[in-house]
C-alpha cells in the first residue's frame, strides 16, 4: 500500500474497534476516506462464509442521504429513472440516476423509511448533483453518512442470526422490505437487501450503538458460522450476482472527460428501471431518443470456456471468418459456487444477445512467461447465482 493510500483511508468506521480484532492482514483500501478491509483473514474463506454460512461486511462508508420534506417523492421521481410512486413506505428500490444526456451518474438503493422520508445510498458522493436536482423542490437533503453505521449480514444462515438477535417479525420481511426495531433504546433499521445475490440483510444503526450491535450479532451467530468479510469476498459475490460496480461496469457520467465513455441504463441492461410512463425524469428525453435510435453498447454476462480468468480481456465476435473486436471485459472471476469461468463485459450492439457465441482473448502468465488463449464464451441471461433462498419468505432456518 502506498503512502498516499494510507493517507486517504485514514478514517475509521464505528465498527473499527471490533473489526480490528479480526484483522490479521492489515490490508485495506480507501473508500471515500475510510479504511475498508480487502480481507480480514483470507478472501476465499470469507467468500465461502457468504455462500455457506454468514458473512458480515462493514458498509458504514456507504454514502447516505436523508431526503425529506413535502416534495421528497416528487424530487426522487424526477431524479431517478424508475417510478418511485410505486415504492411504498417500508420498501427499498434499486435505482439509477442519469444526467440530461441519459448517462448513468450512479446506481444505489433508496429506502422509503417512513411516509415521505427516504434514504438514498450509493457508493459515490452526489451532494452537488442532488442539490442541483432539488432546485425548485421543497425538499431537504441531509448527508448522514457519518451518522449511520451499517453492516451487511449475508448468507444462508443470516436469517437464523437475525432470529437469534431477537428481531420479532423478521420472518415476514420480504426481499426489498425494511423494518424498524428497538436496539438498546436506539432505532435499528433492518432491510432485506444486499450486494451478494444471496439471502441477507443490512443493519443500520446510530454509531454509538455500533459496537454493541456487533457484539450482539456475533453472539447470535456464533454457532452459525458468522465471520467478518472484506471487499475481496464481497466483490466475488457481486460478480456472481451480476450486479454493477461503478468504475468497473460504468464510469459515473460526471467523471468522464471523453465522449462515449459513459453508459446509459439501456447499455447496462437496466431497461427494466426506465419508466417512460413518467412524463419527466432526468435523462428522459435522451433515453427516449436512444430507444428510437438504438444503443451503442450492451452489458453482457459471459460464461467462458476453460478456467483462466478473463481479466481486462478484449471480446470478439466472428464475422465472415474474421474475428472482430467488439468490446471488453469489465469484471471477471472463476466462480466457485457455479463452477464456471464468468465475466461481465461491455460490447457493441448488435452483438451480445443472450445465447450469442463470443470470443474472449485471455492473456495469462505462468512462471514469468505470458500466453494467450481465445476462449469461447456464451452470453447468458440473468445472474450467474440466484438461489431460491434469496427471496423465500419466511426464509428457511439454518
Amino acid at each position, binding site marked *: 500500500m502506498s503512502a498516499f493510500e494510507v493517507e486517504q483511508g485514514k478514517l475509521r468506521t464505528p465498527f473499527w474497534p471490533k473489526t480490528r480484532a479480526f484483522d490479521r492482514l492489515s490490508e485495506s483500501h480507501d473508500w471515500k476516506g475510510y479504511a475498508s478491509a480487502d480481507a480480514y483473514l483470507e478472501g476465499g474463506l470469507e467468500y465461502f462464509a457468504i455462500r455457506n454460512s454468514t458473512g458480515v461486511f462493514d458498509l458504514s462508508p456507504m454514502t447516505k442521504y436523508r431526503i425529506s420534506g413535502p416534495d421528497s417523492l416528487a424530487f426522487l421521481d*424526477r431524479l431517478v429513472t424508475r417510478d418511485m410512486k410505486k415504492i411504498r413506505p417500508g420498501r427499498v428500490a434499486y435505482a439509477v440516476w442519469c444526467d*440530461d444526456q441519459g448517462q448513468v451518474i450512479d446506481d444505489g438503493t433508496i429506502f422509503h423509511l417512513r411516509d415521505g422520508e427516504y434514504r438514498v445510498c450509493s457508493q459515490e458522493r452526489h451532494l452537488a448533483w442532488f442539490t*442541483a436536482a432539488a*432546485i425548485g423542490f421543497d425538499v431537504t437533503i441531509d448527508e448522514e453518512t457519518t451518522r449511520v453505521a451499517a453492516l451487511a449480514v449475508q448468507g444462508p444462515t443470516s436469517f437464523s442470526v437475525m432470529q437469534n438477535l431477537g428481531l420479532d417479525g423478521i420472518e415476514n420481511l420480504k426481499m426489498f422490505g425494511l423494518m424498524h426495531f428497538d436496539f438498546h433504546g436506539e432505532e435499528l433499521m433492518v432491510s432485506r437487501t444486499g450486494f451478494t445475490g444471496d439471502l441477507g440483510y443490512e443493519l443500520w444503526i446510530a454509531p454509538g450503538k455500533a459496537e454493541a450491535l456487533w457484539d450482539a450479532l456475533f453472539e447470535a451467530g456464533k454457532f452459525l458460522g458468522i465471520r467478518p468479510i472484506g471487499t475481496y469476498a464481497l466483490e466475488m459475490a457481486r460478480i456472481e450476482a451480476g450486479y454493477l460496480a461503478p468504475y468497473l461496469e460504468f464510469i459515473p457520467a460526471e467523471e468522464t472527460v471523453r465522449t462515449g465513455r459513459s453508459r446509459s441504463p439501456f447499455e447496462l441492461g437496466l431497461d427494466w428501471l426506465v419508466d417512460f410512463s413518467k412524463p419527466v425524469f*432526468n435523462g428522459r*428525453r435522451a433515453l427516449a431518443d436512444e430507444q428510437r435510435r438504438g444503443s451503442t453498447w450492451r452489458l453482457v454476462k459471459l460464461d467462458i470456456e476453460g478456467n483462466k480468468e478473463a481479466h481486462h480481456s478484449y471480446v470478439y465476435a466472428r464475422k465472415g471468418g474474421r474475428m472482430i473486436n467488439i468490446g471488453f471485459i469489465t469484471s471477471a472471476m472463476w466462480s466457485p459456487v457455479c463452477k464456471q469461468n464468468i465475466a461481465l463485459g461491455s460490447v457493441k450492439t448488435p452483438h451480445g444477445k443472450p445465447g450469442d457465441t463470443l470470443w474472449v482473448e485471455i492473456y495469462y502468465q505462468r512462471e514469468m512467461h505470458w500466453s494467450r488463449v481465445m476462449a469461447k464464451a456464451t452470453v447468458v441471461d440473468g445472474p450467474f447465482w440466484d438461489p431460491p433462498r434469496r427471496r423465500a419468505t419466511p426464509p428457511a432456518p439454518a
Partner: protein
Amino acid sequence: MADRYDAIIIGAGHNGLVCGALLAKAGKKVLILEAQEQVGGAAITRKFADGFSVSACAHLLYQLQPQVCKDLDLSIDTVADDMATIALDSAGQHLRIRNGAATGLNDSDARQLHAFHKRMARFSELLRTYLNKTPPRLANGTKTDVVTLARLGLDMRRLGRKEMRAFLRLIGMNIYDEVEERFENPLLKGAISLDAVLGTHLGPRSPNTILTYLYRLAGNHGKLSTPTGGMSGVTEALAQRARDSGATLRTSMPVKRIVVDNGRATGVETDNGETFSSWIVASNADPKTTIMQLVTPRYLETGFVRRIDNIRMRGNAAKLHLALDGLPVIKGIDKKDFAERMLIAPDADYVERAFNPAKYGEMSADPVLEITVPSFRDPSLAPTGKHVLSAIVQYAPYGLREGWSDAARDTLMNHAIDKIAAYAPDIRQRIIAAEMLTPADLESEFRIGGGHWHHGELALDAFLFTRPVSGAAQYAMPLDGLYLCGAGTHPGGGISGAAGRNAARAILDREKTT
C-alpha cells in the same frame, strides 16, 4: 374549455411582436399576451411628467435588422438618423465622433481610429451574418445545422488565416487593452470603452468586451437613430403588423404559468385565472424567469435547470429622465449638438473606476452616462420650448448591497445629476420633473429579470451555440411545445428583432419536420 390557438406568445416586447407577427403572417392563429397596459416591453414611449414623454427604457435605435423590416414590410419613421457621438470634456474640448472619424484628434489617433474602425467593421460584419440565423447545434446536427456551421467556418476562412486568428484572439480580449494600445486621446478611449460595456456587468478591463463592442456594431454598423415618437414608434408599428396579420393581442394580461401536461407545454394560465391552450408557447420573458417561474424546474431535467439557474442576471444600467424647462448650457456645445448623443466617460480608467463599486454591490458615485435630448428633434415629446433629457446611467448594480430603497434611488439620481451638472452647471435650475428607474424598477415594471439589458449577460459562455445555455440554443426548449423568442436567446439584446424572427423561423421549421 380553454380557447385554442396555434401559438401563444408570452409578452409583447418587440421580439414577441416580431415573432407573433411572423407566425400570424404564416397563417397561424396567434395570441399575444402582454402583462403591461402598453405593448413594447423595454421599447416603449411613456409619459413620465405632465406633458413630457420619453422612451422609458431603450432610447436609441441601432440594431433593428433589415430582414425583420423586410419580412414584415415595415419602415420606421425616424427623427434622427446617423447621429454623432459627442464625448464630453469638462473643459469644453469635446470630441465629435461619427463613422470612424472624429474631429479634434491628432494625426496618429485619426489614423488609428480609421484603422480600428475598419477592422471592427470587418469583424462585426462577420457577426452580423449570424445574428439572423439559428445557431447550429454542436452535436447530432441536422443538415441545416451542418451547413450553418460550415458557413461559419467558411466565412471565417474568407477573412484569411491571419485575420481569423486575430478575430478569435480579439473576441476574448478586453477593450481597455485595445484602446490603450492604439489611442492617446482620453475622450476617445472613454467613448469606445463605454460602448463596449453599456448594458453589461463588465468594465473595460473585463474579458470579452471586444465581443460586446462588436455586437453593438454588428446591428447596423453602429449607426444611431431615434424613431419618431420614441421607441413606441417601433413597437406600435410591429403591433399593427401583428394585428393586420390576424394575431390577437391582449394587454394587461400577465401570464402566471405555462401549463405543462404530460411532459409538454399545452398553454398558459393568466393571473386572472383565464387559460388558453396551444401546442406552441413562445416566451418573450427572459429565459430564467420563463423556466424558473413560469414553467418551474420540476417539469425539466436537472442539468438544464442548473444551467438556466446560473444565468447571470445582474443588470447595471439605470435610466434617468428629466423634464427641463429649456436646454441646459454646456461649454463648447452648440444648440444643434443636442440632436446628437453625448457621453460622459472622459477616459477608459474613468469607466473602469465607475465599474469597480458594482463588483461589490455598490453604485458608482461617478457614473458613466449616455445622454440624449430626444425632444430636440421630436417636439411631440415635450411642450413647446421645453425638453426631455434621457440618460442611461451606469453602474447601478441590481444586487445593490443596501437594497434598492427610495433613498438609494435618490442617491443614484443625485450622483447622475451632479455628474451632468459638472458639464451643464445650470441643469438643476432647469429640472421640472425627474424620474429614475433602477434595475430593480426595470425588473418590476418591465418584468426583466435583474433589469438586464440582454435578459442575461452577453458573454463568450452565453453566445451563439451556448445562448441562453448550451443544449438549448435553437429557440426550442427541452420541453415539447416551449420556445423562447426574446433577448435572452441568440443573438442577444438591443432593439433588433433578430431573436423574435429567428424564433418564428425555428418554430415554423420544426412544424414542417414533425
